[in-house]
């Protein structure tokens, strides 16, 4: 089984949800970013979403936008993102790493070469924000051939017919976007998220993680009680922004402290299947 499937199967057995932190590779610089990445598992990360910085992150709110700009300014590139994963795999062979970003840098890299190189680096999944079902075959097919899952989104605008289409060819897990909007603003109303997860569960066995707007341990616990995973991005990269200028060790410590708090409450929340 793949690292992703292994992880979600193990967590299901343990009756808890995955904690999935997001950081942008290279934010605020390559070295600090790698230090954070390598310590995320011991702070409670079950799956890591690693952002590939892009100049025009149009689905992201101010926090992730700023994070992306910091990384680019620090010299992050696609090659450096992959090197970072390779280096991570030397110290961690079990925690799944999912690269998240926009299509153009992948397009520029070449989809076939990209699929090959991410697999070689030890990447487990890809989330490409602006590559919907209609367009993702060009990446999904070569990635799948390399054993890398392309993770798809379900959103508040996804109706039943669309859900069927999204599930056809979906791999790894599903990313439920809790609210129609950009990252880091508000989270969706709990009832709506619960109903959406129930609808997804009725249609697939793929794990369903929830992201967008989850900032506090309290919110993470509420989502963890319903979903198979909790994604937190903006709150974590904001922690980096808030501590810029401090010594590297302090930035790392702040980020890991927040991660531990979020992971702790995610793991403590009993994970009751909605449709069980």
């Amino acid at each position, binding site marked *: 089984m793949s690292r992703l499937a292994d992880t979600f199967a193990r967590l299901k057995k343990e009756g808890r949800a995955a904690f999935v932190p997001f950081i942008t590779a290279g934010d605020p610089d390559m070295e600090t970013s790698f230090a954070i990445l390598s310590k995320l598992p011991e702070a409670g990360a079950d799956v890591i979403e690693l952002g590939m910085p*892009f100049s*025009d992150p149009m*689905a992201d709110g101010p926090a992730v936008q700023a994070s992306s700009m910091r990384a680019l300014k620090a010299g992050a590139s696609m090659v450096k993102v992959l090197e970072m994963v390779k280096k991570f795999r030397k110290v961690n062979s079990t925690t799944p790493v999912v690269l998240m970003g926009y299509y*153009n840098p992948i397009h520029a890299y070449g989809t076939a070469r990209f699929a090959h190189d991410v697999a070689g680096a030890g990447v487990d999944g890809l989330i490409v*924000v*602006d590559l919907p*079902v209609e367009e993702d075959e060009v990446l999904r097919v070569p990635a799948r051939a390399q054993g890398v899952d392309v993770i798809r989104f379900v959103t508040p*605008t996804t109706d039943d017919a669309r859900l069927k289409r999204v599930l056809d060819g979906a791999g790894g897990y599903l990313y439920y*976007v809790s609210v129609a*909007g950009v990252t880091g603003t508000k989270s969706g109303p709990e009832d709506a998220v619960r109903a959406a997860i129930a609808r997804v569960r009725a249609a697939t066995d793929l794990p369903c993680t929830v992201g967008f707007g989850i900032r506090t341990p309290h919110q993470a616990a509420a989502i963890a009680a319903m979903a198979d995973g909790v994604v937190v991005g903006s709150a974590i990269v904001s922690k980096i922004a808030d501590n810029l200028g401090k010594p590297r060790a302090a930035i790392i410590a702040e980020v890991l402290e927040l991660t531990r708090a979020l992971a702790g409450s995610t793991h403590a929340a009993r994970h009751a299947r909605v449709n069980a």
Partner: protein
Amino acid sequence: MNTIPNSFRTGPDAGGHFGAYGGRFVAETLMPLVLALEQAYEAAKKDPAFHAELTDLLTHYAGRESPLYFAERLTAHLGGAKIYLKREDLNHTGAHKINNTLGQILLARRMGKTRIIAETGAGSHGVATATVAARFGLPCTIYMGEVDMERQKPNVFRMRLLGAEVRGVSSGARTLKDATNEALRDWVANVEDTFYIIGSVVGPHPYPAMVRDFQTVIGNETRAQMLEREGRLPDLVTACVGGGSNAIGMFHPFVDDVAVEIHGVEAAGEGVDSPRHAATLSMGSPGVLHGARSYLLQDSDGQVIEAHSISAGLDYPGVGPEHSWLKDMGRVKYHSVTDREALDAFVMLSKLEGIIPALESAHAVAHVIKIAPQMRPDQIIAICLSGRGDKDVFSVAHALGEKL
């Protein structure tokens, strides 16, 4: 892939592709909206009532048809081909943009949307959007880069006067690309009630085809007017290309006329050899931005490079996907002119014809200034004069070192 088709007018395909370009590269949250828009537009296209209402507005509100004017003194001055100007500058709001915003707001109403958003560069599209929003009593928010707000102050005031909220965008180079990012962010957060009126032939399908369809009134009129005036088609049709909506509107009715040469004119800014230009088709490479695959100014890592042009309306690192296809097919030739050449053309047309062109349109005029003298007096050029230059007088005065 590069087989020449029987017609250049059949695209896009069902997925919104012009050859390898176009498509629908948007976040999943927006996909159902984009698909709903496509359905609504297909239905509207087949509805005579939609066309009747649009034609009525174009005639009585926008002031169409616009004249095809023989630029006698410019022709004599350049001493070559006869030059005609398609006077889109005489439309209500002063540019071709109103052709598109009228079409889209009718569609918004058909879809029951109650709020309008748009991006704008020079402000022409913002004004044209604020205008139709006022006309139909819908609240309207316009996203505009802070740099563009500074260099297009009169248009910012116009939009506010028309009742629109103008939101300054402070990310990136604070120009059109960044305003587009912000408009997309607004759209994804307001999916229930909001219609996004895109200002050019860019964005996810169906926008490039839909905006083109609304703008082909330019070329259709030009064709008929030219046949009436000269009894034949022009030898050369030309227009400036930023996103490319006035250009595709002008070109599309001529693309199957093999004897008609077609030139798109991009902004070379400070020169295509400098890092400061907006010549996407001339200097860029295929990439994906704002919903479509098309030529793009980008670095080797796929990061988008900021464009530069003295003209805020051409200051965009992307271009409409149909232009990318027409370029690859060789049907349209794309040239570029510098800020300096556009300024000279701006002044020349003002002095010789009493017509102050938009800086965008001045790029097309500048191209003609270069090539008309090499053509014979019995040859004919039709330029799309996409807008008027009132909005640009401050920035032109500044560039010419004059204080107002």
